[in-house]
């Protein structure tokens, strides 16, 4: 593996227009999801009278804070379908957007450390293959061939008993993904408005007809929420209750190193995931902090545990230094699957509940949420992820099954 040079920054990427008084569609949140939704609304549906409203700066939320892992090795059919659709879109997006955002298909290993992990992994690899997702089960010696710096000795506290491997999985440079989408959306006529916080909703009876913002009222034919960790706070202002809980999720990076880590390694059981960024930082994450929170920082002991796990798995990292840690706020649902679709309020649509894993879904979110906003109907890929499933009981329970604990 050789280090790739970073892409050049284009001169300018998008306009900064004043908000108009009315749009066909208003999207709240200019993270990857909001931007991809605007892009596909314009591209696939020809709807260009759109504003994306962002309270901070473009893609400064979880889009700027995630560990950029992209994969589609989810257990259940509904999940495999939407994440694999995303992965297929990722594979052609750099060319389509004419922006090299360093999508690197270096593969992902999901390690097994217990007999139950092994059974779960073998089952998931088989389920993936039945769904047309590339997946293999690897024995420890094969794991070591994919990632030679990984300690697969049987003498560790939680030995590596094998792993699932998805070769098409990988990482991408998240900021550049957002800028690539923003540039194209802007070119297609979408207004990207930063420093514009949605503080309430304009209603006509039980219908949403616009939003209140710190920059005035904006009327809208339809409103789509893509506000990640703040979804429930926002939806409540429209009188909609969402079954999500917001938690801090932390990540950290080391200083720069020579390229040493050729793939992405995730471990559910000892709970750390590690990849090496293009510039050379080791990028690590783990699970959410147990409590609810909006403070964009988490607890030190969570970082301590993930570092201990990382050093046991990768003895070569023992002398690496932590350069920076940060937190984002993720919204978690009871079944660890997202909610995309209608709300009980007419003209108000929601995309939320992606928890710790929504970056990888970015293009598929845009594709399906745009379809829903354009037609008022779910796309076949997001239909199973409707809010109603918590009443009907048709849950898509990816807790643990998704190859990561949430």
């Amino acid at each position, binding site marked *: 593996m050789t280090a790739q040079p970073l892409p050049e920054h284009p001169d300018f990427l998008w306009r900064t227009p004043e908000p108009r008084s009315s749009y066909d569609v208003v999207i709240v949140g200019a993270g990857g999801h909001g931007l991809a939704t605007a892009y596909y609304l314009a591209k696939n549906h020809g709807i260009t009278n759109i504003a994306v409203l962002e309270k901070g700066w473009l893609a400064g939320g979880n889009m700027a804070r995630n560990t950029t892992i992209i994969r589609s090795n989810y257990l259940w059919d509904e999940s495999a379908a939407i994440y694999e659709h995303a992965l297929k879109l990722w594979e052609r997006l750099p060319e389509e957007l004419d922006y090299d955002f360093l999508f690197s298909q270096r593969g992902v290993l999901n390690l097994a450390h217990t007999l139950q992990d092994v059974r779960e992994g073998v089952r998931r690899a088989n389920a993936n293959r039945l769904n047309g997702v590339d997946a293999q089960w690897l024995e420890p010696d094969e794991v070591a061939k994919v990632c030679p710096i990984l300690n697969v000795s049987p003498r560790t506290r939680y030995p590596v008993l094998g792993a699932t491997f998805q070769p098409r999985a990988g990482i991408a440079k998240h900021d550049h993904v957002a800028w690539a989408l923003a540039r194209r959306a802007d070119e297609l006529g979408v207004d990207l408005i930063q420093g514009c916080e949605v503080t309430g909703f304009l209603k006509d009876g039980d219908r949403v007809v616009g939003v209140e913002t710190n920059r005035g009222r904006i009327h809208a034919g339809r409103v789509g929420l893509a506000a990640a960790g703040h979804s429930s706070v926002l939806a409540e202002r429209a009188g909609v209750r969402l079954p999500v809980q917001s938690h801090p999720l932390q990540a950290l990076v080391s200083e720069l190193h020579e390229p040493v880590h050729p793939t992405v390694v995730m471990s559910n059981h000892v709970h750390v995931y590690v990849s090496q960024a293009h510039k050379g930082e080791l990028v690590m994450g783990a699970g959410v902090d147990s409590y609810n929170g909006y403070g964009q920082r988490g607890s*030190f002991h969570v970082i301590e545990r993930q570092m201990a796990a990382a050093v046991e798995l990768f003895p070569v990292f023992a002398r690496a230094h932590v350069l920076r840690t940060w937190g984002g706020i993720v919204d978690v649902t009871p079944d660890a699957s997202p909610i995309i679709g209608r709300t009980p309020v007419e003209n108000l649509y929601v995309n939320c509940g992606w928890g710790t894993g929504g970056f990888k879904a970015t293009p598929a979110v845009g594709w399906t949420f745009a379809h829903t906003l354009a037609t008022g109907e779910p796309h076949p890929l997001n239909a199973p992820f409707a809010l109603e499933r918590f009443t009907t009981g048709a849950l898509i329970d990816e807790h643990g099954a998704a190859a990561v604990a949430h």
Partner: protein
Amino acid sequence: MLLITCPWCGPRDETEYHYGGQAHVPHPENPGELTDEQWAAYVFYRDNPKGPFAERWMHSIGCRRWFNVLRDTATHEVLTSYRLDEPRPGGNR
């Protein structure tokens, strides 16, 4: 790291505790009469405020008792803790 006060043992590090989510969620009085919507509300829907939140914690490596904490989810400030049979300080459930 949060510093949480167990009503029985006093202030201890967060790592001594287990989190239990929203406090004051009563079991339905007449479960047989609930609609699907009411069941969904009881099982899956919890408050998620940005601000003061009454939540349950258990002192899992101490006295192993459950109690309630009032904590600000935006600032992480632990406002107070109280026993399960006490009402939420300041009202509002």
